[in-house]
Structure formats: structure tokens, C-alpha cells
């Protein structure tokens, strides 16, 4: 625990990636294999479910510090992190814990089965044995959400150096379902037996957004152009006749999409298909909003399956007859994919078509029509490119359609979390309905740190009312909001829900009166209905 807390402190204190990798490497060298596994699991998001409800932590912090719960709450709004709030509130202590990370994680696992009283007693007793920083790390382990500025990529880099292996190999070994309790470091990372883990997916290759005109990419003939489907990324694996479906968040979603998970794979070769899980009906993709009805459901009923059926739009093949073919050129992988889709012959697995374009102008023209097809834009992939690991520049580009946009007025601001602690960074925007401002969207992203600091100052000086962490402010600031989709919604006062709203720019040249009206926004809805 001491060593792990020290690792987190080191990572926390360093801004450069080299220093972080060095700290990780240090930890790997000095820890037991069990501790290593836990460290990897925790830092790459594979943490066990949270052992106690988070309100218990608030109550304990209040008890131990002798301050009322509402004040714990107010403090939390400012600190922006419950684990840190509880660590700051409880009295300081110079002791350090002798427990190892894996021993501690075992204790936390047992915590889940205890009632509140027993769990509370355990946590209070443990707090007394920990220094303030260890207490923070311990609370983080309890509350989950262990985001500390270490990406999976850094973890992979450190492990690759530690084991003297290729980073892509390590990234692959870390994929899929494993947990520190059921696997040994040796078997997972040092000497994995091939085919031991039939469900293991490959790391996804992610595209970079294309920000300039595509003619920068050279001759169109070298590229494959496809629609960018508006669903969720998925990897469909068939090994030894059994099917596994993974989402990009490395979640096994086979049972959520029986249209794919229950296909009969007994006659298939061992293959891994990369594609888009897409809501699709009567030969046409459905808007993303409908797919959302499926995403959260672990076991979808008949009714919702009929209402929102899904298909896999297959666009790449990573394994063919049990062989990893990611290093082969896209044109070769594509040929095999076409053979496979043909052979599988299922109405639920459709080939994502290559678009017939001869010039970039033609591609640009197709891109403008994407929205009508419920596509997000175009994908441009180099025909000679291999299938890489993670987000890499150069061979895979996404060329999204320009967002729809409106000008809206800032009316509420809320304090943020994490890096945005003690900063009003989460905003609610409104548009005009006659002389009234109605909330239309919340947006958190798109401003530079400098702009956000400026808005923060504005909020603090122009507060009208306070509602816990939220403040209503003088309606003066106007922002251009971009969004990817629009739908009717009964849950919102405006009757409208926007998809992925974010701030495109601060319209300092505009007064609140010049912002858009609800009617203007509804015009997008009508335009969409016509297509």
C-alpha cells in the first residue's frame, strides 16, 4: 500500500509522460507479482465493483471530523472528488500502512459482503492506520473511478519495457476479461499460452479526425472510403464455434445483442470481425438515439428487439482461420472479410460498403449527404495500411460532417470535478421562447483553460442564486454550441434533446438578445424530418 500510494503520488506530481513511465517501471521492479497485477488492473480501469455505497464514505467523514453532513457536501462540491474530500476532512496521521496492495484489495473485496456498520468500522479503523495521502488512495480504491493521469498507453509502455516486449503485444495481452484474483502475472503477461483465452479481443485501431481538406492525403486511389456509421464500435469473435461480442470499452456485450451473440457459429472459421453495432431496420440505419434504448439493457426483451433491431456493419477482419492478420494490408484483409461475410450469409452481418468515388470532390459531396443516411461522416483508410493499436495518425482518418450549431445563453454553471475542481466549468445554456430563456443543453467541453477561467470569474461575480454546487447567473454570455443530432424529448422542458452538445466558440460579439430562439432550434428538427 505504501509503495502503491507513493507511485500514485509520483504520477500525480509529474507532468511529463517519461517521469510517469519511470515511476511505473520502478513500481514494477519492486513489487510482488500479485501487487503488479492489481496495479495494472486498477490503472487500466479493470477495478472490482465499488465495495460500499459512496454515501457511506460521506457519513463516515462527517462522523470522524465532527462536521455536519451538509458541510461535507459543500466541501465535496469544491474539492470535486469524494475520496479526496474524505481524506482532507479526517485528522492527519503520520502512520503508514504495512499491508500490501493485494492484501488490501482482498480486504476490500470482503467489505462488499459486510453491512454498513461493519464496513464503516473497518474503514474508520483503516483510516487511522494511514497517512493523509495513503488515505486518499485508499478512498479512491473504495470509490472507484481511479483516474489519475495514467493512460492505458503509459501502463503498456512501462510493462513493455519491464518485460522487454513489443508494446502492441502487451496491449493485446491486457485485453479482454481477466481479473487479478483469477490469473497469475506470469500467465497473463510473461508467458501466455496461445488460445488459452478464447474470448480475448484485439486492441482497437482508432482514427484521427481529419481537420484539413482530404486532397492533402494524396491520390484517392490509395484510399478506401466508407461511411462512418453512427452506432457503437464492436468486435465480434468466433473461436471454436463460440461467439463473443466486445464493445470498445472492453465490455463483453454478447448477451445484450442476441442478433449477433446468438448466431450459429458452428460452421464458421475462427475469425475476429471489427465493425459497428448499428440500429437497423428495413434496410436502413436508425438514428443513434434509438440505439440508446439497447445500450443499457443487459437482456433486451422481445419488444425492444423488434422496435430497435441491430446489425453488425463489418468493416475489418483481424483474425482469419485462427491467424492474426492485423499486419496484412487493408486491401488483403478486406478481400477476406468479403469472403467471410458472403460465407456467413446472415442478414445481421452486413458488409460496410466501399464507396464508389473517383475524386475528393465526389467524396466531399457524399459527406454532405451523410446526415440523411444517419451516418456521422466518412472514414478514409489507406489500402496498404496495417491494423494498428490505439489512436494512430496517418492511415485511418474520420471525416465527420460539420455539426449543427446554434447560439445560446449561459444561464447556470456548476463546479467541476477532477482537474476542474473549484472551477465553474459545467454549463447549462438556454434559447429564447418569447421573452423567456428555456434551457436547451448542458455542455462541458470546447473552451480553452484560459476561457474557462474567464467564465469562472464571470460566474462568481454575476451569481443570482445558489443551489448547492449550481449557480444561476446573469444571462449575458453567448456561446455557439455545436451538436451532432436533435430529437424530440419529453424529459426536457424545451421538448428537445441535443446529441453531444459542446461549445464551438464564445460569441463575445453577441449580446444575449441575439441568441437563437427555440423556434430556430425546432427548425433543425423539421429539416431532419423531411429527409
Amino acid at each position: 500500500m505504501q509503495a502503491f500510494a507513493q507511485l500514485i503520488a509520483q504520477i500525480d506530481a509529474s507532468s511529463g509522460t517519461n517521469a510517469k513511465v519511470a515511476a511505473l517501471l520502478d513500481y514494477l521492479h519492486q513489487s510482488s507479482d500479485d501487487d503488479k497485477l492489481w496495479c495494472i488492473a486498477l490503472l487500466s480501469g479493470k477495478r472490482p465493483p465499488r465495495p460500499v455505497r459512496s454515501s457511506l464514505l460521506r457519513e463516515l467523514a462527517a462522523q470522524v471530523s465532527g462536521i455536519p453532513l451538509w458541510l461535507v457536501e459543500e466541501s465535496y462540491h469544491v474539492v470535486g472528488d469524494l475520496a479526496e474530500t474524505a481524506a482532507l476532512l479526517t485528522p492527519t496521521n503520520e502512520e503508514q500502512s504495512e499491508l500490501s496492495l493485494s492484501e488490501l484489495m482482498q480486504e476490500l473485496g470482503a467489505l462488499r459482503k459486510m453491512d454498513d456498520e461493519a464496513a464503516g468500522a473497518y474503514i474508520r479503523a483503516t483510516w487511522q492506520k494511514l497517512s493523509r495521502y495513503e488515505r486518499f488512495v485508499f478512498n479512491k480504491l473504495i470509490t472507484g473511478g481511479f483516474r489519475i493521469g495514467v493512460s492505458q498507453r503509459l501502463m503498456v509502455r512501462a510493462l513493455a519495457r519491464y518485460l522487454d516486449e513489443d508494446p502492441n503485444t502487451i496491449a493485446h495481452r491486457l485485453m479482454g476479461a481477466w481479473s487479478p484474483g483469477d490469473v497469475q502475472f506470469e500467465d497473463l503477461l510473461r508467458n501466455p499460452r496461445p488460445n488459452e483465452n478464447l474470448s480475448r479481443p484485439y486492441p482497437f485501431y482508432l482514427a484521427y479526425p481529419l481537420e484539413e481538406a482530404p486532397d492533402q492525403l494524396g491520390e484517392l486511389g490509395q484510399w478506401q472510403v466508407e461511411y462512418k456509421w453512427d452506432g457503437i464500435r464492436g468486435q465480434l469473435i468466433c473461436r471454436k464455434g463460440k461467439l463473443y461480442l466486445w464493445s470498445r470499452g472492453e465490455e463483453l456485450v454478447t448477451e445484450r445483442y442476441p442478433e449477433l451473440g446468438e448466431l450459429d457459429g458452428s460452421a464458421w472459421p475462427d475469425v475476429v470481425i471489427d465493425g459497428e453495432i448499428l440500429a437497423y431496420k428495413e434496410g436502413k440505419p436508425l438514428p443513434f438515439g434509438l440505439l440508446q434504448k439497447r445500450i443499457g439493457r443487459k437482456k433486451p426483451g422481445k419488444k425492444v428487439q423488434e422496435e430497435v433491431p441491430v446489425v453488425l456493419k463489418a468493416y475489418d477482419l483481424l483474425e482469419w482461420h485462427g491467424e492474426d492478420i492485423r499486419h496484412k494490408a487493408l486491401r488483403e484483409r478486406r478481400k477476406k472479410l468479403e469472403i467471410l461475410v458472403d460465407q456467413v450469409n446472415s442478414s445481421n452481418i452486413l458488409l460496410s460498403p466501399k464507396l464508389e468515388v473517383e475524386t475528393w470532390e465526389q467524396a466531399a459531396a457524399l459527406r454532405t449527404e451523410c446526415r440523411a443516411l444517419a451516418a456521422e461522416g466518412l472514414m478514409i483508410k489507406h489500402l496498404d495500411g496495417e491494423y494498428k493499436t490505439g489512436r494512430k495518425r496517418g492511415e485511418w482518418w474520420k471525416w465527420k460532417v460539420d455539426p449543427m450549431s446554434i447560439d445560446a445563453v449561459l444561464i447556470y454553471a456548476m463546479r467541476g470535478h477532477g482537474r476542474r475542481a473549484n472551477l465553474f466549468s459545467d454549463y447549462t445554456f438556454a434559447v429564447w421562447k418569447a421573452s423567456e430563456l428555456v434551457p436547451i443543453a448542458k455542455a462541458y467541453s470546447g473552451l480553452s483553460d484560459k476561457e474557462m477561467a474567464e467564465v469562472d470569474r464571470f460566474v462568481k461575480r454575476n451569481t443570482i442564486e445558489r443551489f448547492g454546487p449550481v449557480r444561476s447567473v446573469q444571462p449575458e454570455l453567448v456561446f455557439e454550441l455545436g451538436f451532432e443530432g436533435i430529437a424530440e424529448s419529453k424529459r426536457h422542458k424545451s421538448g428537445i434533446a441535443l446529441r453531444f452538445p459542446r461549445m464551438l466558440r464564445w460569441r463575445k460579439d453577441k449580446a444575449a438578445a441575439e441568441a437563437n430562439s427555440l423556434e430556430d432550434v425546432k427548425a433543425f428538427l423539421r429539416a431532419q424530418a423531411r429527409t
Partner: protein
Amino acid sequence: MPLIHFTERGLYCPRADVYIDPWLPVSKTLITHAHADHARPRMGSYLSHHDSVAVMRQRLGDISAEGVRYGEKKKVNGVEITFLPAGHIPGSAQIRLASEGEVWVISGDYKLENDGLCEPFEPVKCSHFVTESTFALPVYQWDEAGNVMASIERWWQQNSAEGLCTVLQCYSLGKAQRLLHALSQEIGEIFVHGAIHNTNEALKTAGYKFPHAQYLDASVDGKRLRGAMVLAPPSAIGSSWLKKLKPCKVGAVSGWMSLRGTRRRKNFDRGFVLSDHADWKGLNTAVLSSGAEHVYVTHGYSHVFAKWLRSQGYQAQAIDTAFGGEDEDAEQDEPANPESN
């Protein structure tokens, strides 16, 4: 009619016809301390502690100012006015106003810990206490300054060993002098940015001494910075001025550094938690030892602190002011009058 009114121009005492730390121009003012959000330009006259006068003259230029000692009594239209130590920065004062048995204390900014540099905070009995609330949440608990100084020195030594320059961001009035006063001279040379140098010069006229602070002007050879410490205000850290100091490590010394989110957002190599404001316990102690029944909470987490004090039996209310309490960067450190630069 109460002795003090909260007006749009600032805190006002009608009986004496004086404003305390006003933010809009008025004729007569009492100034708690020389930070720019409390001592603003374009006032008819200024009355403050001698040390504040010295700094205000440097920052605000040609002003009509009068200085007093701590504890010295002034009578204005029957109102007794006394400046008492607030322990925040050199010259900082709590201003006590008394008339017809009504006693108010306007404490400006304060801390309870003795920093060895300025006159330590002195509790003053009153019936009405005006308090800041910059760090008025129980999550703010300061470690002893000696421990913080020791960890700054350790970091400095480490950087020195690597041949790096150590840069500390600190306010040019108050924190900079506190650091100069406390940091060891054994580790290496200490340089200061021009804004700190100017403040030091002003404080020297009031009798303060900073023998180890060297002005970092263009004549200083870059080689001397390897292993040295440089103190600089926030405005310099964000500017191209910093480039001249590379290779360097940059740390910040502020109460705000106690929040991990703030530390991460500001991207300093290190954050040291050291404040010239009272922490949660300090604020509570100050309110308690004032003996006041009525507490007015200004700049900071004023609404939360007022609510807390009400739950503790005080008549407390939050007062909106133009002092920079809630803004992390707004303890307006820089002179408000650009001509004085």
C-alpha cells in the same frame, strides 16, 4: 443606525464618514492592507498602518496617505479608530471602530500563525466582526509552516543537484517576503522578479531587511541561475519571462495548492500548501475569540461559512464585496495602477 453600512462602494462608517477598503472612488478611506483588491487607486485620502503606506506609495503613486502604528488611537467625529495586527502581510491590520459602546472589527485578510515576518494576529474583542472566508471550508487545514519550508528546501536541493533553477510562484507582496525570510541561504543564491524587488524596496523604507534577495535583472549571468532559487509573481510565470530561466522546475506556494484538482490544472512541477490566510480552524478560532455576536462574512466561501456560523449560534450573514476571495488568481497582487509599474 449601525456603525458600519455595507454599500455599493464598500464598507462605510457614516458617523466618521470613512470607507474601509472601498472598491469605488470615495474621499476618505481606511485601508486594512496594501493588496490591490483592498487598496485601490483614486481615493481622496488613505489612512493605514505605516508599512502599508510605504507599499501603497510605491504601487499607487502620488497619493494622500497617512500612517499609524498598531494600537494608536484616532478619533474621527467621535468614532475611535484603531489599527491592530492581522498577521496577513507586513502592515496588514484589523480595523477597530468604536462609538457609543458599539464596537466593530473589520479584519481584512488575516492568519493566526506567526510567520516571523509581520506582527502576529491579535484577537480583538468586539460585538460586530467582519471576517474574510477565502479558505472557509473544513477541507482546508494548514500544515505547520516550518514543515512546508523544509519540503521546499528539500525540493530546491534536489533541483540544484540536477543543475536546475528552482522557480517559486508567489504573490509579490507578502508571500515572497515570507519565503525570503524563512528560506535557508545555504542552498544557493536567491533572485527575485522585478515586481518583488520593487515591493522589497518599498518595505525597506519601512525598516524591513531582505539581505539575500538579489534583483534578477538583465545583467545577471544565466549560469548563476543553475542551482539558484527565483521568486516570481503569477503574471511572470505565465509569460515568456520564464523562458530565460530554463532549464528549471516551477513550483507554486499557495493555500490553493491543497486541492489536487487545482494542482493538476495549473500544471506546476510541485505545489506547496502555504497560505497567508487563516485555514478553517483559524477562521473559527478568530470568530470565537472576537467574542462577537454578529459576524459578517465577506470574500470567499462566504455563504457556506455564514451558514455554519449560524448553526453555531452566531448572528451571521454573507456580504458580497469586490474583494478577491473566491477567485484563485484574484488576490490582486499586481498594482492596480499601471502607471506605477
